[in-house]
């Protein structure tokens, strides 16, 4: 079971968010796909993560209110899935695959290098908020091991030199 640290939310994070017209249009597109409103929880949470950056307690309350669920129910869904960010993420979230093929085909070396280069461990962010290191389970790209997912994108067949080039480029962008 995945476990997450419980962090006290700031007063701003507790503030219920509002959905603008663009969001409402996308929600209106989503609802007819399912016979229940509850089924729209996962896709709506995805929309919110895209729009607000993370799933704050205020987002949970807004999603619950919009779909007629209790905040507790929505929170239960959020906490089950690993990809909903329950704290503001860094600009680039480095999700390193730690499972079998990746682990034995260079993944361990990548992790050691990342920890040294960034000075952080799994679950931590760099002080400038640019990089966050996360150890994840199988990403389903074992033929291209080792693999890192950075935000939405897969980076495959990596070695330390390729990874450094990617990090340099990303650091330069921010």
């Amino acid at each position, binding site marked *: 079971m995945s476990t997450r640290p419980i962090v006290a939310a700031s007063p701003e994070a507790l503030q219920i968010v509002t959905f603008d017209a663009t969001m409402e249009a996308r929600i209106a597109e989503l609802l007819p796909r*399912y016979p229940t409103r509850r089924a729209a929880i996962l896709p709506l*949470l*995805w929309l919110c993560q895209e729009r607000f950056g993370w799933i704050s307690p205020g987002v949970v309350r807004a999603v619950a209110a919009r779909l007629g669920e209790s905040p507790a129910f929505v929170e239960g*869904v959020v906490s089950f899935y690993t990809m*909903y960010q329950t704290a503001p993420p860094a600009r680039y979230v480095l999700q390193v695959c730690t499972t*079998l093929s990746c682990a*034995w085909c260079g993944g361990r070396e990548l992790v050691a290098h990342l920890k040294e280069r960034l000075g952080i461990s799994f679950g931590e962010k760099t002080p400038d908020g640019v990089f966050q290191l996360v150890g994840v389970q199988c990403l389903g790209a074992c033929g*291209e*091991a080792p693999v890192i997912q950075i935000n*939405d994108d897969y980076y495959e067949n990596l070695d330390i030199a390729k990874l450094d080039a990617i990090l340099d480029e990303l650091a330069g962008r921010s």
Partner: protein
Amino acid sequence: MEPVLLRARGVSDSRSIATYLAAGGYEGWKKALGMGPDAVTKEVLDSELRGRGGAGFPTGRKWSFVPKDHPGPRYLVCNADESEPGTFKDREIIEYDPHQVVEGVAIASFAIKANTAYIYIRGEFVRWARILEDAIAEARQRGFVGKNVMGSGFDLDVWVHRGAGAYICGEETALLESIEGKRGFPRLKPPFPAVVGVFGQPTVINNVETLACVPHIIVRGAAWFASIGRPKNTGPKLFCVSGHVNRPGVFELPLGVTFREIIEEHAGGVRGGRQLKAFFPGGSSAPILTAAEVDTMADFDACAAAGTMLGSGGIIVFDDTVDMVDVADNVAHFYAHESCGQCTPCREGSDWCMDILDRIVAGHGRPADPDTLLRICRFSSAGMTICPLGDAFALPISSIVNKYRSEFERRIASATPLPQKKQPVLPWAGPCPGFGI
């Protein structure tokens, strides 16, 4: 063999509907609409197509379980949650030939008279979810999906539903819960999804690769499909090879080839001139096979006879430098993380296995540990849990302990005792009499 499912790999602009149509795409869908649902199901039944997601259940039979007289809606769900370690075949199909999936979804929906289909794709596959959405939009534009498909009077909506990071949602009933907007907790069966599925309605759940086979069966016939492979193990299969091989990748081969042929010929053999030590034949949930078992045939029945399973066809290869205790530990970490937590034997068992294996790896193993691991595995498998995740960690771990026990014993022989920590006394609870805290 001539590529069937991967025929578009390497073709330029292979994802577009124009390319797909030029290669005879959607002919199966047109033919199916003319045949009628029962004839389509019979064709798939006769082809002896077995589910490619892991269980190997005959697809046509699964379809035939949907009650004929059900008054309400029915649903077709395409399982694209591909999360079994070592498996990356569905992504390959979607990457090169997404319309093959859409066409398979359409034909299967028609066969079970479902007007709505969901493609459930793992949350990490952002790119492949977009590819599928684009393909569905193209198909809708051309009238292959939507209201009154090709003037047949049949309506079909296809929606992509993204998961959000949970291996368990590849289990079909957990997947249905996830579509319904809930935590991915597997359901007790029966009732089976074909009777009570998503939103309480009859639902068929098929894997991407299974559905991708369907258009070919309709166009070329059941007899053609059944002529590939072995009796009861028919058709082409995608094998994913990863780990210590020269050419990792996805290979399309008839069921019944040997693992030796897959590993040595197609994947180019073990890399660096090293020797094969062991391999998972069908994802990490399948009991491990040793180098001596490499001549086993890669199909459902031959793998079952060898005490393992073909699973999803994800072959993970280990060379002779690998310590099997580390492999067992890595497997335990995966399942301890992915157990949904609903059933005690799986939630606790996977965690205990992980703790014991971590301790052995840290050099503090105890002589009783191998037997303790086997005992935990026995109590977590064979029907002790709602879904097969209990078996999914217990079977590979116990197979590693049984087949490589000497490696565990060697580590334990040189182990030092774990430094004794003082038991913490909880501030709100006095010592429990009789437990000596």
